[in-house]
């Protein structure tokens, strides 16, 4: 038997990896998308409250997604993977809050961090993509486009998910990380539980929009309550 899916996948990544600057315009976008999707049909689970944002109901393995405006949103995505025995890694600083991660349901034992990758960050991320289910990176603004493309190609090859954080403008967040299939942006947020001199921060209401390529080209919006594990309204407010 031929490993057709593997061949398709490596063909797709070869296209991206070896002609980073050139858009493969010779191929129809449909075919390219098909090539990209081949072999990575598997989905990583996402919390129920966020499923609406993903056209397939989960994060497709091998894809690159960007999240801007909220760290708890990142933690919610990691928690679901972690709850399914997945391994998560994080590169760059500031690191996501560990106490918040534990509260969100991330297994800290399977959440490995590299805070100071320095100049070698592309190699570090590439190594981690080999083995981890999901790798969160906080890239510096000086990241080179060639590195970005190469890392997205590596994620696709290894069927890992590359999750890029950053406060990019909602309008062109997909262009900020050239290999990204999809971006999640917080367009509105509100904290509940705090009065004038009393109470404490209890529940975070976020309105999140997803926008991307392929099936995700139509913007989707949903309102989530974090950091409640279920994403639902807390019992007592």
């Amino acid at each position, binding site marked *: 038997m031929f490993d057709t899916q593997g061949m398709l996948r490596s063909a797709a990544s070869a296209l991206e990896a070896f002609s980073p600057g050139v858009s493969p315009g010779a191929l129809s976008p449909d075919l390219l998308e098909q090539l990209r999707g081949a072999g990575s049909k598997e989905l990583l689970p996402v919390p129920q409250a966020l499923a609406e944002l993903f056209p397939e109901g989960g994060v497709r393995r091998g894809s690159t997604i960007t999240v801007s405006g909220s760290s*708890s949103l990142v933690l919610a995505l990691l928690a679901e*993977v972690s709850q399914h025995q997945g391994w998560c890694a994080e590169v760059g600083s500031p690191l996501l809050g560990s106490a918040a991660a534990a509260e969100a349901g991330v297994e800290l034992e399977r*959440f490995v*961090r590299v805070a100071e990758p320095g100049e070698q960050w592309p190699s570090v991320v590439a190594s981690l993509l*080999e*083995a981890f289910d999901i790798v969160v990176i906080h890239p510096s603004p000086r990241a080179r486009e060639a590195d970005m493309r190469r890392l997205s190609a590596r994620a696709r090859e290894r069927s890992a998910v590359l999750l890029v954080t950053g406060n990019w403008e909602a309008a062109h967040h997909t262009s900020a990380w050239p290999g990204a299939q999809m971006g999640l942006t917080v367009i509105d947020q509100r904290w509940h539980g*705090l009065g004038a*001199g009393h109470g404490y921060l209890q529940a975070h209401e976020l309105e999140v929009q997803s926008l991307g390529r392929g099936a995700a080209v139509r913007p989707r919006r949903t309102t989530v309550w974090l950091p409640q594990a279920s994403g639902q309204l807390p019992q007592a407010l």
Partner: protein
Amino acid sequence: MTAVRALAVWCPDWPVIAAGGSAELPGAVMHANRVVACSAAARLDGVRRGQRRRDAQSKCPELTVYSHDPGRDARLFESVAAAVEAIVPGIEIIRPGLLVVAARGAARYYQGELPLLATIARAVSDATRYDVQLGIADGIFAATQAAYAASIVPAGAAAAFLAPLPIRVLDRPELADLLIRLGIHTLGDFAGLPRSDVLARFGPDGAYVHDLARGIEIRPPSARVAPPDLDVEMTLDPPIDRVDTATFVAKTLAQQLHERLAVRGLACIRISIEARTENGEQLARSWRHGSVSPAVSTAGFTANAIADRTRWQLDGWLSGTIRSDDGQPSSGLVFLRLVPDDVIHDDGRQLSLWGAQAGASGPGGDLEQIDRALARVQGMLGPDAVVTAVVGAGRDVAEQIRLVSWGESREVLPADAWPWPGRLPAPSPATVLKSAQPATVTDIGGHPVVVNGRCVVSAAPGWLRIGQQPPVAIAGWAGPWPLDVRWWDRLTARRRARFQIATVDGAGLLLVCENGRWSVEALYD
């Protein structure tokens, strides 16, 4: 081939003893809620290995529970090993608590096996406070069983000695289950089966344990010497004198050795760890594969197992036995070599059809792959660059996080479980800033807000300005929550007031006012 006379030194219930328990008091070492080892007193009350904590405690309410720490077991066992080695050279540690050594030459020197045992027992009890049991028999397996029974089995009588022992002592749970169902309960019954039938039905591993049951041990304590090019060594510059650096070195070397063996299709069942200190002392210790009857096909040490043995050994050396005459540890290690003493052909391992571990059908990654990837990153950036977090003791958002380098134990300290009044309630901030950002807080009228010595706010905060950014209006606030820590020490004392603040654009922040200055410590984003 007749087996070599071997002498086994066994410390009963070693993990409990190493943890600080004693045989007379009921104590047990627990790991993952199961009993790993228990003291003799606990055993009398019905505590058994593999029992759940609740069951063990209901059998024996006064049970003292110790945490499981293989590193500690190995470190303390080093003193026993050193005491034995002073009498008989060439010891091999099988696992912390059990070591074997070839007995023939030493027995001749001490004029008999009984005087030899007496000498060793006295040496160990003089050097350490631990109890040991000793045994001599033909072959490592029989010698170990003899040590459990504290007896000397005469040459050639191993089969008769082993015959009444239950089949479970072979350390093959699956095979033992099957044999018991077939009505074979003792090693004698098993040894009585025709060898060719055992080989046909149970394969090479079955035939190997069948030989053990018959008192035949093909593999003598030190069989073949591996070709010299399999050794891996490393010169350590700067010298290592700390266990955490040793851990990383151990891991790198173990990986190299394992790869070298793997390309030749070999696996290692005994390894010598050799080191030299800055002052020129030579140290060496052998470790045999952790079972007295290593399985034929999966016998070899894995890379991780080699790394563990090396780390334990270095830990043992660094925490005490390298001493110059005045009793001080003399110096760090400058050279380390791993020698695969005893190698066998690696017949490979068949991964189970549905993956190596339960739950592998989900996203779960392959642990070996994870380990390899992280070792590569540690190689690039140093061992401390790759961490996992433990949420532990402390009141501050930053203070309560302990980062543990990958490969080190994420042990829970007693203080982690204590109550820490003054912690902020959950949810915790999702971003903790590396360094606090200075900010200005003013009331509606633009006057600076201050907190006085009695922790009263001068006015309701109205505007927040972070650094040079434009000011934002405050929608809600709570606080001040005072944190007055280490007031007894002038240098480290800190008095702070913490506030949670929500701005009109929906952001939540953790602010701190210290000495009249405001700063943002963390973001609830």
